[in-house]
């Protein structure tokens, strides 16, 4: 069976479970909204400044909410030792890892959509000026978070301190991606798309390509040990 198809089946299975239980979706969505609320006490939410820091605010929400999502990714395979059953099955380790990334990607995009509406509602920021460009930024950056989240989720799946280790390991690595996403989102929120935007877009693209290839290449090493 085609590895990509296998990955999609793993993702389909995970999404079916997730939509049934909504364990990480509810948690991540609620968490992101809570952060949005908390930020209103950090600065004056009525000031026009909000648009200039809106990108940072949003991506911190997404990154933190993301942790709740990719933390669950491989942890979902632990009860009943499903991870062993999957690894011993014809699903390749890289398909499994990619499947987990696709799951996190979809779930995180849902959380982002909700957060954007809440953000627009609370802070009166018109984020819908460049819907396609914003979606492209979200998609590229979210995939980066998802693939790194899956790789590190796989790395820490057997550790006792899994939930604690994962954010500490992953956020420093996500820095270039978050930098680029924040910059681009700010530009879009302020309705000023500059030549710099292309540069940061390229950072996102390079990040995604590099880490997707690394994660796929190292999947066996990470999962089979």
């Amino acid at each position, binding site marked *: 069976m085609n590895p990509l198809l296998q990955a999609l089946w793993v993702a389909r299975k995970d999404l079916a479970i997730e939509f049934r239980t909504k364990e990480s979706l509810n948690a991540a969505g609620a968490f992101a909204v809570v952060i949005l609320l908390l930020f209103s006490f950090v600065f004056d939410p009525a000031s026009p400044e909000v648009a200039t820091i809106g990108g940072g605010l949003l991506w911190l929400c997404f990154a933190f909410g993301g942790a709740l999502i990719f933390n669950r990714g491989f942890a979902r395979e632990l009860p009943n030792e499903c991870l062993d059953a999957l690894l011993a099955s014809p699903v390749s380790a890289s398909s499994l890892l990619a499947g987990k990334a696709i799951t996190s990607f979809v779930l995180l995009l849902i959380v982002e959509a909700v957060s954007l509406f809440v953000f627009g509602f609370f802070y009166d920021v018109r984020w819908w000026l460049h819907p396609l460009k914003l979606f492209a930024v979200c998609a590229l950056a979210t995939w980066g978070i998802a693939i*790194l989240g899956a790789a590190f989720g796989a*790395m820490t799946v057997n550790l006792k301190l899994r939930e604690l*280790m994962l954010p500490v*390991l992953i956020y420093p*690595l996500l*820095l270039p991606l978050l930098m680029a996403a924040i910059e681009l989102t700010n530009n879009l929120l302020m309705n000023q798309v500059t030549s710099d935007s292309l540069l940061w877009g390229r*950072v996102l693209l390079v990040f995604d390509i590099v880490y997707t290839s690394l994660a796929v290449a190292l999947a066996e090493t*990470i999962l089979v040990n």
Partner: protein
Amino acid sequence: MREKLVYILAIVGAVLLAWNLYGIFTVLPDEAAQGAIYRIIFIHVPAAITAFTGFFIALVLSAMYLKTGDLRYDSAAASVTEVSFVFACVNVATGSIWARIIWGIWWTWDPRLTSMFVCLLIYFGYLMLRKAIDEPTQRGRLSAALSIFGFVDVIIVWKSIQWWRTQHPSPVLSIRTGGGNIDPAMEHMIYRDLLAFLLIAAAIVLVRMRQEMIEREIDSLRRLAHA
């Protein structure tokens, strides 16, 4: 044999460092603009180069471990990373002291400082991950993978410097500037200090490697006792 090598490296490194310090404080003159504090560059720059040399070597050793499965590469990679981490800390600390004198602040969110900080966090994660895994073979594989992820990230982070305005002093070594940015005597001293640092780092790495191997042996004895 190995023990002798450690002593030789450490002694040669220490003597060289002492000789360098003598030169730095008594022979070389104060710098025109900065005065005496500029001397920190003789620690700051070699520490950075030592750290990054180490991180790169650790990357190669990690890849070698994944390729061969020989745990000696894993011990080496872990030891080198640890020692490099310390030198990276030295780099940040000396830079911070220098900034306090020259800029009046301990820290500035200049991209180069920020990326060094991120680099420290990444490798701190590496050391933390190693602590969290008991089984040596699993620890080797996972930390090798993390080492590869981390080093690639350091490159991406580092690259982004070029796209930000930086207030960090520009590179001084001729190898990067084509010369003319620094007095040859001072540049010479930076290289001499680098050599001393590398020798000392190598000595510590060998000691740490020995400890790693003993630790693994203890682990295997414990497993044997439990079996």
